[in-house]
C-alpha cells in the first residue's frame, strides 16, 4: 500500500509522457482501422497489419517502462491479432467488438498512467476477464468459423456493446483532456518560426541603433511590419489542425451508437484536410459530437422503416468541412426522417414557448429555429418529436461562444443538415475601433452590419422616441438605440459635429450603438481579461491598439442583453426585400426614336456593340449583321440607320450602336440586334399594369420617368418578362 503514489501529474516523466502520446496516436489509428476493417473486410491484410503494429509497439515499449499490466493486455491482444493476420480467424462482428474492447482497455490503462503515474495493479482483475475473452475469441472463433451465430452470444454482445459505448465515451473524454495541452508541429514550421524570430530580433537591434530620426527608419518599420505579418501567419499555421483529427473519432462512435440504437449507418467524410485553429477545434468538438449522436439516434430511421420509405436500409451520415468566406463550415448531414414541423410546433405550443396563433403563422424556417430555444429540448421532447434536439440550445451556445453560428435545414423524409459555421481563428479578429466617453472600444467586424452618421442638426429629427426609449428609423424599421457612454456610465462628451451609430447584430439582436467617433478598422489581437473584469460581463477581452493604448473589446450580445434588447426574428425584413425585388427590376434605358425613352429588361441584353456602318449589310430590304459567325437581324424602329447613312454620305465615319439581345429563357430563340441612337442608363424600374390609358404599349416607370418597353424582340417577349417579374 505504501508504494501507491498519490495521483499527481508531475510524477509522469518525459519518457512516459512521450510513450503515452505515441500510444494514444497508435490507438487512434487502430480504432480507425478497426471500423474500416468491418466496412471493408477485403482490405484485411493491410489493415490488420496496421493494427498489429500499433499493439505490438505498445507491448514492446511497456516492457522496458515496466508497465506489466499494460504489457499483459497488449500481449493477449497481439496474440489474437497474430492469428487474424495469419488468416486463422475470419473477421466477425464479435471479433471486432472484442478488439474494440481491447482498445478501450488499453486506453483506460494509458489514461490511468497519465493521471497517476502508475497503472494501478489493484484493478488488475478487470483485465483478466478481457484477456480471457480475447483468448476465447482466439480459439473459439477459430473453431467456430463455420458455425452459425448462436442467439445467446448475440444477446451478450448487445449488452457488451452498450457497455463499450459508455466506456468509449469515457475514454474519449480522457483523451480529449490530454490532447488539449499538446500539439504536434511540423519541424519545418517551427524552423520557419525561429528564423522569423531571429529576423525580428535583428530588426529590433537595427531600430534601437538607428533611432527614430534615422533616414532608414521607414524602411526598418516596413521590414518589422512584414516580419511580424509572416510570424503571425506561421504561428497561425502551426495552430491549424486538420478537421480530420476531429472526424477520426466518429466512425467508432457511430458504429457503437448504431448498434445500441439498432440502426445501420455508414459514415462518409469529405474535406478532412480543412484546417482549423486548435482552440476552435476543441470548442466545436462537443457540439459536433452531439450533432452526430443526434443524427444517428433520432435522424436516421430504423432499417425497416427506411426500406418502407423507399430508401436503402443503410443510412448515410455525411460529415463535410470546407472553407466559405473566411470561415470554416462543418456540415453534419443525414438522410434520415427529417424533422416534422407540425410536431415541433405542437411541442413548442405545449411547452408554452409560442402561442398557438404564433405557431400557425410561422414559416418552416422559423419553426425549425424553435429547436434551438432553451427549454424546448429536453430528452423526452426529443424522442417524441422525431427530430434532433437534446440540448440543441447548448450546441448553439457553444458554437456562438467562439463566434460561430448554427444553421439547420430539414426536409421530412429526406434528411436533416446541421451546419456549424466557425471563424478560422480566435486570437486575431478584424474589428472597428470606436470612441465613446473619451475611451476606445473595439467592435468585432463580424457583428457590424452598417454605420450611420447622424449630424447634430439632424439628431433631433431622426432620433424618435417611443416612451422613454429612443429609436432610429432605418429603412422604415425602428431600430432601438443604445448610447454606449450612458450604458457604461461614462461622461458623455458632446460633440458639435454629430455622432455615429453602429448597427450591430448578434445572436438575433439588432440594435444601433451610438458612439462619439469612429477610429480606423484594425486587426486586433485579443487578450484575455482577469477574472474580476470578466465578471462585468460586457467585455470579451482587451487589445493593444496601433498607438499603444488599450481598448476593451465589447461583447455585442452581452451589451444587447444588458440594454434589454430582445432577439427579433428577422424574416419580415427579408420578405420585404424579396417583395421589393419582385416588382423592381433592372432595365437598360436607351433612345431609339428621337426623344423617346425606351427600355429593355437588362437580362435579355447580352452585349452592347459599336458597329461601323459599313459592316451592316442589307438583304431583301432588311438590315443584317454578321456577328460572331451568326447572322443577326437588325431592328431599326427609330430609323437610326437612315440618319447615319446621310451622315456617312457627308464623309463622316460613323458607327452604329447595336444591342445584341437574346432570350436565354426561351431556348432556340434567335438572337437579334437592336439599333439605337444612344444608351442612356441602367436602372431599376417598375412595370406598369396594362390598361386603357397606355393603349397596347407596355410602359414602365424607370427612375420615375415613363419609359416604353421595347416590343417585338420576340412576340411574347414582354409577356414572358412580366411573368418572370
Amino acid at each position, binding site marked *: 500500500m505504501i508504494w501507491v503514489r498519490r495521483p499527481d501529474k508531475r510524477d509522469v516523466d518525459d519518457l512516459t509522457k512521450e510513450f503515452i502520446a505515441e500510444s494514444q496516436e497508435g490507438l487512434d489509428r487502430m480504432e480507425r482501422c478497426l471500423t474500416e476493417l468491418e466496412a471493408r473486410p477485403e482490405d484485411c491484410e493491410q489493415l490488420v497489419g496496421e493494427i498489429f503494429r500499433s499493439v505490438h509497439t505498445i507491448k514492446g515499449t511497456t516492457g522496458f517502462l515496466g508497465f506489466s499490466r499494460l504489457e499483459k493486455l497488449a500481449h493477449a491482444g497481439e496474440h489474437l491479432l497474430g492469428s487474424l493476420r495469419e488468416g486463422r480467424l475470419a473477421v466477425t462482428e464479435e471479433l471486432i467488438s472484442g478488439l474494440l474492447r481491447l482498445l478501450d482497455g488499453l486506453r483506460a490503462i494509458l489514461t490511468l498512467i497519465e493521471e497517476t503515474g502508475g497503472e494501478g495493479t489493484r484493478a488488475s482483475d478487470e483485465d483478466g476477464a478481457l484477456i480471457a475473452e480475447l483468448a476465447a475469441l482466439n480459439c473459439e472463433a477459430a473453431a467456430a468459423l463455420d458455425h452459425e451465430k448462436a442467439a445467446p452470444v448475440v444477446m451478450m454482445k448487445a449488452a457488451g456493446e452498450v457497455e463499450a459505448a459508455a466506456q468509449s465515451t469515457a475514454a474519449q473524454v480522457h483523451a480529449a483532456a490530454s490532447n488539449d495541452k499538446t500539439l504536434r508541429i511540423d519541424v519545418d514550421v517551427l524552423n520557419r518560426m525561429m528564423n522569423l524570430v531571429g529576423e525580428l530580433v535583428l530588426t529590433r537591434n537595427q531600430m534601437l541603433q538607428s533611432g527614430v530620426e534615422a533616414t532608414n527608419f521607414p524602411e526598418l518599420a516596413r521590414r518589422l511590419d512584414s516580419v511580424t505579418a509572416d510570424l503571425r501567419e506561421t504561428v497561425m499555421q502551426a495552430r491549424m489542425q486538420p478537421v480530420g483529427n476531429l472526424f477520426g473519432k466518429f466512425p467508432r462512435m457511430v458504429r457503437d451508437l448504431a448498434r445500441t440504437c439498432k440502426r445501420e449507418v455508414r459514415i462518409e467524410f469529405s474535406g478532412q484536410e480543412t484546417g482549423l485553429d486548435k482552440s476552435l477545434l476543441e470548442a466545436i468538438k462537443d457540439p459536433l459530437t452531439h450533432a452526430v449522436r443526434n443524427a444517428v439516434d433520432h435522424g436516421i430511421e430504423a432499417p425497416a422503416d427506411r426500406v418502407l420509405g423507399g430508401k436503402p436500409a443503410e443510412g448515410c451520415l455525411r460529415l463535410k468541412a470546407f472553407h466559405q468566406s473566411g470561415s470554416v463550415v462543418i456540415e453534419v448531414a443525414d438522410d434520415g426522417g427529417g424533422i416534422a414541423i407540425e410536431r415541433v410546433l405542437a411541442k413548442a405550443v405545449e411547452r408554452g414557448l409560442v402561442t398557438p396563433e404564433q405557431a400557425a403563422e410561422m414559416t418552416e424556417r422559423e419553426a425549425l429555429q424553435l429547436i434551438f430555444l432553451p427549454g424546448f429540448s429536453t430528452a423526452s421532447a426529443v424522442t417524441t418529436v422525431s427530430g434532433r434536439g437534446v440540448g440543441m440550445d447548448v450546441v448553439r451556445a457553444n458554437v456562438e461562444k467562439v463566434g460561430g453560428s448554427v444553421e439547420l435545414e430539414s426536409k421530412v423524409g429526406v434528411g436533416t443538415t446541421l451546419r456549424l459555421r466557425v471563424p478560422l481563428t480566435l486570437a486575431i479578429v478584424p474589428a472597428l475601433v470606436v470612441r465613446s466617453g473619451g*475611451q476606445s472600444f473595439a467592435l468585432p467586424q463580424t457583428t457590424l452590419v452598417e454605420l450611420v452618421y447622424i449630424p447634430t442638426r439632424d439628431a433631433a429629427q431622426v432620433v424618435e422616441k417611443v416612451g422613454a426609449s429612443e429609436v432610429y428609423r432605418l429603412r422604415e424599421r425602428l431600430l432601438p438605440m443604445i448610447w454606449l457612454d450612458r450604458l*457604461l456610465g461614462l461622461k458623455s462628451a458632446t460633440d458639435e459635429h454629430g455622432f455615429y451609430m453602429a448597427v450591430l447584430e448578434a445572436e438575433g439582436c439588432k440594435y444601433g450603438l451610438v458612439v462619439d467617433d469612429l477610429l480606423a478598422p484594425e486587426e486586433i489581437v485579443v*487578450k*484575455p481579461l*482577469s477574472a*474580476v*473584469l470578466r465578471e462585468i460581463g460586457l467585455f470579451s477581452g482587451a487589445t493593444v491598439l496601433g498607438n499603444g493604448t*488599450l481598448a*476593451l473589446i465589447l461583447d455585442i450580445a452581452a451589451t444587447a442583453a444588458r440594454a434589454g434588447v430582445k432577439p427579433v426574428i428577422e424574416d419580415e425584413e427579408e420578405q420585404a426585400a424579396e417583395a421589393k425585388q419582385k416588382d423592381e427590376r433592372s432595365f437598360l434605358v436607351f433612345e431609339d426614336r428621337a426623344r423617346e425613352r425606351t427600355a429593355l429588361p437588362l437580362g435579355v441584353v447580352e452585349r452592347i456593340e459599336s458597329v461601323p456602318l459599313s459592316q451592316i449589310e442589307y438583304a431583301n430590304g432588311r438590315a443584317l449583321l454578321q456577328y460572331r459567325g451568326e447572322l443577326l437581324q437588325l431592328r431599326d424602329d427609330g430609323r437610326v440607320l437612315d440618319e447615319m447613312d446621310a451622315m456617312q454620305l457627308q464623309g463622316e465615319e460613323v458607327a452604329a450602336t447595336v444591342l445584341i439581345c437574346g432570350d436565354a429563357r426561351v431556348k432556340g430563340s434567335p438572337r437579334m440586334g437592336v439599333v439605337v441612337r444612344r444608351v442612356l442608363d441602367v436602372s431599376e424600374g417598375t412595370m406598369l399594369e396594362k390598361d386603357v390609358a397606355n393603349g397596347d404599349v407596355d410602359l414602365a416607370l424607370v427612375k420615375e420617368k415613363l419609359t416604353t418597353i421595347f416590343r417585338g424582340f420576340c412576340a411574347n417577349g414582354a409577356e414572358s418578362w412580366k411573368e418572370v417579374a
Partner: protein
Amino acid sequence: MKIVGQDAQQIHEEDDSISLCSMFADDESFGIDTGKIREVLGKRDLERVPMAPAFVAGVVPYRGDVLTTVSFRALLGLSESAEAGCVLVLEDSDGEERFGLLVDTVGGVVTVSRKMLEANPCTLEARCKWLFDGAYKMPNGLMVQLDPEKLRPSRLAETGMFKQGAMGENA
C-alpha cells in the same frame, strides 16, 4: 501566521533584515517586499474599465498581457488623484496571477530590520486591518507593510469589502 512567514524569509536571508520598496499614497508611506515585485513600470496612463469594481483603477499593457490594476488610493478610501500614478507589477507566490498596483509615487529600496515591525494597532478600521500587515518604525515615521497576496484583484473581489465605491469616491 506572521511568525511562519518570517521563518520562510529567514531561510533566504541569514540576518533579520529585509528590503522593502517604499511607496506613497497621500502622505502615508507603505512598503512591499522587493522579492514580490516584478517590475516598477513608473508613471502610466491607465485605460479605465467601465462598470468595474471601485478598486480597479484600469488596465495596462504589460509584456503581451493585459494587467488589471488595483488603485491603492481607492482601497484606502481616498479620492482619485489628478495626476497619473506609478504602476507596480506584482505577482502572487504561484506566479499564476499577475496584476498591477497603482500608487502615487514610488520611493526607493529600504533595508529594515524585522525587529522594527510592530503589529497593527487594535483600533484600526476593518478594511485597513485586512490590508495592512503591521508597520515598521522608521526613523522618519512609520512605514506600513503590505502583503501583495491580499492585494490580488480576485482576492479583493472575494472579500466584498471593497466592491462598493470607497468613501469620498464618486465612481
